């Protein structure tokens, strides 16, 4: 049996396999890098990066839930200058393919992060991923990701300044995700990542108060897989730009479900916490599936699904 070719280009970025690590679940790669070469990952999506350092939330930040977890990290990160000075040079040495997840409180902040990156022009960066699940301080704290026109506005502004392909990561906490997908696609997104976390909470029985310092948190892990898969399916049936699926993936079979729903790549987040080798296992699982189903390449599966979607 010959090799299965896992190479694929997503929105013009060539990647050697479709399994990426999700933002916020692999930091800047140094920890996983002690376990295996980061080149083994299709891409590494680094922690949400802001213009200035963000402190993150006080109090308890994580809690376990049935087949899932809540997090309220509050996008703690050391800012774009640190990324450029410390993390990207190291990532470049590792030969990693880097996607920078960008966060901001205003359109101007998102734009400034991308401009600063563009100015410095690090060669390890392959794409920008806009995390629009941030509170839009100008609009009274409503997330960019919960209003299609705000989502389009930040996308348009980012598309104007990015020298790299632009991925927009959508929030699942909406009545209908399709208008968001359409709005950001029209505003210049090259690809979509979905989904971010669902909003949830836990309450402590002893105190009667919320467990998390931030009251609510983002629900991730296997529990949300069916919701993520449905949103990927909805969006691939509605827009033509590539989709990267994320949400609860912990096996090759899980990942293949997203590919069958029309995604061209997947990201792995929470599964890393239980098993830091999860992305490698998942990649190998996809390869095994392709081989068992007579595909010589990932491209062949992705094209077959695309054909079905178009048909």
């Amino acid at each position, binding site marked *: 049996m010959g090799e299965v070719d896992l190479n694929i280009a997503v929105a013009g970025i060539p990647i050697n396999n479709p399994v990426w690590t999700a933002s*916020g*679940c*692999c*930091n800047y790669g*140094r*920890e*996983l890098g*002690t*376990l*295996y*070469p980061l080149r083994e990952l299709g891409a590494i999506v680094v*922690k949400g990066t802001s213009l200035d*350092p963000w*402190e*993150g939330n*006080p109090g*308890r*930040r*994580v*809690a*376990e*839930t*049935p*087949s*899932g*977890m809540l*997090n309220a*990290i509050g996008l*703690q990160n050391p800012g774009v200058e640190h990324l450029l000075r410390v993390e990207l040079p190291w990532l470049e040495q590792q030969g990693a393919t880097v996607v920078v997840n960008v966060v901001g409180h205003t359109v101007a902040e998102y734009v400034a992060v991308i401009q600063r990156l563009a100015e410095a022009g690090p060669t390890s960066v392959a794409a920008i991923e806009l995390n629009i699940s941030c509170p839009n301080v100008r609009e009274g704290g409503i997330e960019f990701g919960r209003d299609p026109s705000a989502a389009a506005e930040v996308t348009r502004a980012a598309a104007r300044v990015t020298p790299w392909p632009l991925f927009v990561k959508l929030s699942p906490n909406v009545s209908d995700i399709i208008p968001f997908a359409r709005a950001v696609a029209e505003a210049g997104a090259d690809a979509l990542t979905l989904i971010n976390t669902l909003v949830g909470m836990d309450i402590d029985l002893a105190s009667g108060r919320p467990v998390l310092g931030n009251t609510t948190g983002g629900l991730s*892990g*296997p*529990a949300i897989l069916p919701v993520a898969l449905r949103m990927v399916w909805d969006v691939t049936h509605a827009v033509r730009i590539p989709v990267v699926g994320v949400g609860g993936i*912990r096996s090759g079979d899980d990942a293949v479900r997203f590919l069958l729903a029309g995604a061209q790549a997947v990201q792995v987040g*929470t599964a*890393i*916490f*239980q*098993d*830091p*080798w999860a992305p*490698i296992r998942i990649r190998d699982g996809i390869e095994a599936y392709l081989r068992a189903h007579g595909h010589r390449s990932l491209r062949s599966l992705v094209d077959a699904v695309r054909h079905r979607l178009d048909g």
Partner: protein
Amino acid sequence: MDQNGLWRCEDAAVVSQQKSGPDWYRLTLRAPAIAPLVQAGQFVQVRVHPDGWIGSDPLLRRPLSVCTVHQDELTLIYRVVGRGSFILSQRQAGEGINLLGPLGRPFPLTAAEQCPLFLVGGGLGIPPLALAAKQTPGRRRTAILGARSKSYLAGAEEVAATGIPVLVITEDGSSGSTGRVTDLLAKHLGPGDQVWACGPDAMLMAVSALCDRTQASCWLSIERPMACGFGVCIGCTVARQRGGFAKTCVDGPVFRSTEVNLLG
């Protein structure tokens, strides 16, 4: 899988598992890749499920401090407080348990200081002090161990087995004197002494305040809920006194008391 890093992943074999108190267990595992690397204060991330368990609940590993190491075996002492620790308590000799470790910043073992060192532990904070006593042979150490009552002194035997002097105090007086660890510590601590403490936040804060008053230096081992345990999620933070947050899993669990603000 390539495991050349400083931490490893291995299927450890259960050598023995004993219920040793009202709600706590001693679990000895054969873990040849991890055991020899462990430094006092470090922990392992334990997958509590049976071998080959196919399911996603409970989802996360459970952090447990290493109590003692003998060649390729390590012993964990843990309390059953919820479902993860309950499931762990059902594992039996011969079964496999998957571990990640050793993780975290240990006690400052290599600092060759000459001052007296007090190892202060409360409840399930006692176990890691056994390894701390073992790994500081050149120092003048005293252990001060407390719990609500005698049967909750989990790990005190292991500390005593290292041969260092051990002072015990219980809230109900069922073993040693009556009161809390700070009551004993206050009697013995002098300026310039050093304290390594492990236990609930309230105890750590009391110990730290006492050290400040006494001008003793103080290290605290801090427990925070963790998702990953190896630095990637930023979920296990404690506030830094100088602002911002530190990760207890890689920047800690052991911190200089002046570094952190347990209420922040």
